């Protein structure tokens, strides 16, 4: 087995000749054998970062270390990494076998060993029956597997993936998600995976980095990020449906949300805040709990859960997620309850989670 490799990025910046900076100082250390996901909305710079790592583009400033080696000036082929492209980049005129073995001769691998590796990879991905076919004779999922097989045969310690599942339908995507994850565990490679889909990020990542407009928003384990979003952007980006938010005011430990709804909260804060709550934390009120009422605007029944949209303020809709099936119709009045411990607060100006701000103050 090849040696595991870590990656270290110091103050990576990238700007193109015309136009603004795409990446504005990225600092991150990726552990050996880690499944690391870069996630963000389109245009946030995540694909650019991946291309910088691959050596397909040069950084404007900053340092890249692969293993312990300074890698800024290494050619893509010298970085010992493989890459899976969004549209798979398969050679249409070559068979699956030729595609998988493409470029292996450069690494001075004997023909026999090449064939053995190709067969291993094809076996692992269930491609054995298709080895003699051309890519156009394969389905989308099979092409995807060929691209994965190509990344595996090189036995490189690092694998980069650029939105590899975005061309597949939803069902296949879910399947490939778990397959890629299992493959990465089995081979123990360091994986850097770019996606705009927060579900992919949540389900696959050991750790993930959320990028927006070239700036790191938060790095951490998926659940930590979900439960303790650093700022309002992360809170709304991670989680589906997104976190409900509303501008509110705290005065003497009482949170005033709307004219006729306020609740006691246990935070050390005075003044304007943005209050946020995840849909699953807006529960049906039982008798005796402090609650507020709202008129249902829309109901989505998903079988195991029900999504209820209601208007909390004119022009601002919230969504609640209740377990099970609830027979509700638009126009019904529901009683809702929110546990104050489940609420997240962001300061009004910087949109930063006040939990982190007080931490910062202590430090």
């Amino acid at each position, binding site marked *: 087995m090849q040696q595991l490799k870590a990656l270290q990025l110091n103050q990576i910046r990238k700007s193109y000749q015309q136009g603004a900076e795409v990446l504005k100082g990225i600092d991150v250390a990726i552990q050996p054998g880690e499944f690391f996901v870069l996630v963000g909305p389109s245009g946030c710079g995540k694909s650019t970062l991946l291309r910088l790592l*691959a*050596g*397909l583009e040069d950084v404007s400033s900053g340092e890249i270390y692969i293993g312990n080696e300074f890698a800024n000036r290494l*050619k*893509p*082929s*010298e970085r010992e*990494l*493989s*890459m899976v*492209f*969004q*549209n798979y*980049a398969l*050679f*249409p*005129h*070559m068979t699956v076998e030729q595609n998988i073995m*493409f*470029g*292996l001769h*450069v*690494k001075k691998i004997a023909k026999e060993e090449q064939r053995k590796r190709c067969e291993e990879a094809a076996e692992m991905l269930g491609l054995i029956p298709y080895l003699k076919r051309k890519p*156009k004779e394969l389905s989308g999922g099979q092409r995807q597997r060929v691209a994965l097989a*190509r990344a595996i045969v*090189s036995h490189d310690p690092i694998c980069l993936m650029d939105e590899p599942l975005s061309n597949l339908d939803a069902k296949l995507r879910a399947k490939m998600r778990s397959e890629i994850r299992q493959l990465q565990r089995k081979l123990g490679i360091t994986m850097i995976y770019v996606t705009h889909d927060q579900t992919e990020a949540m389900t696959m990542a050991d750790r993930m980095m959320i990028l927006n407009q070239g700036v790191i928003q938060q790095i951490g384990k998926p659940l930590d990020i979900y439960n303790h979003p650093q700022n309002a952007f992360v809170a709304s980006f991670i989680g589906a449906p997104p976190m409900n938010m509303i501008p509110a005011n705290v005065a003497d430990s009482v949170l005033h949300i709307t004219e006729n709804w306020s609740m006691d909260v246990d935070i050390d804060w005075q003044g304007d805040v943005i209050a946020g709550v995840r849909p699953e934390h807006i529960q049906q009120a039982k008798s005796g709990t402090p609650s507020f009422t709202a008129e249902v605007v829309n109901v989505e029944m998903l079988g195991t859960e029900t999504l209820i949209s209601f208007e909390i303020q004119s022009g601002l809709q919230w969504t609640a997620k209740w377990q099970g099936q609830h027979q509700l119709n638009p126009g019904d009045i529901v009683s809702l309850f929110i546990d104050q411990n489940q609420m997240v607060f962001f300061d009004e100006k910087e949109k930063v989670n006040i939990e982190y701000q007080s931490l910062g103050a202590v430090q």
Partner: protein
Amino acid sequence: MNIPNVEKQSMKLQTKGHKRHRRRFSFLEGWLYLLPSLFLFTAFLFYPMVRTVYLSLFYTDTQGKPMAFAGMENFTALLSSSSFLLSVKSTFLFVLYTVPVGVLLALGLALLANQKLAGIGFFRTIFSSTMGMSVAASSVIWMFIYNPSIGFANRLLTWFGLPEMQFLLDPSTALIAVAVATIWMNTGFTFLILLGGLQNIDSQLYESAKIAGVSTIYSLRKITLPMLSPTLFFVITVSMINSFQTFGQIDILTKGGPIDSTNVIVYSIYKDAFINYNIGSASAQAVILFLCVFLVTIIQFKLGERKVHYQ
């Protein structure tokens, strides 16, 4: 579930007559759209073609009117005439000189111009500029270049210490000289088509090759050429047909001379038809040229089928 089905069926019966009527109408409508191009093709292509084949079977007067049926005699006369056989030879040599070199040159330029460099647009414009130049204008330019006393070509030769040459007046160099001029004229078009083909190749294929670490030559051989093969095939076919039909530059530069060394078939047709007024023989030559081009193109398609990778 059954009831609506039955209803539908009875409705189908009712509308069957209507449908047939409508189908006939849309059939006629389709022909109506085709009519203008059919008319133009018939007037300027199909009719002249049929007429040429017809005339090639007759002895004609100086007006081009058929006088007596000749059968195959125009053809047998041509095939035993040494001057026509020389024309055939010159034509094939001319194709051989112009097509491979022309396509390779344009491919080289296209590969260079396909780089992403600042100011590459300037070179792309320059390389394709001969496309915007008429055959007459470019022929005149080359006439000056080849001029024995003031021409640039001879000045270049003397600068290198070589003896001066009579490019267009020497039977052993005239055909090559015209071929060089033709390559230059055709480069623009061939270059532009090949550049378009190159730009259609997905850049991620090259990036993938870069990460694999293969050499530039290897990715040219294994990625660029196979991916470009449909375009190359098109360009080779078109260049070949063009080359078989070369007329303008020969008329301006050499008029088929010296000693018939550049008397390619099309020029020979022109001379027979409009100088000697021997329309029957000229038509027979045209038919032979047509068959040659047809044959070469078919061979090309048969060979190409195996080598070309359509996506």
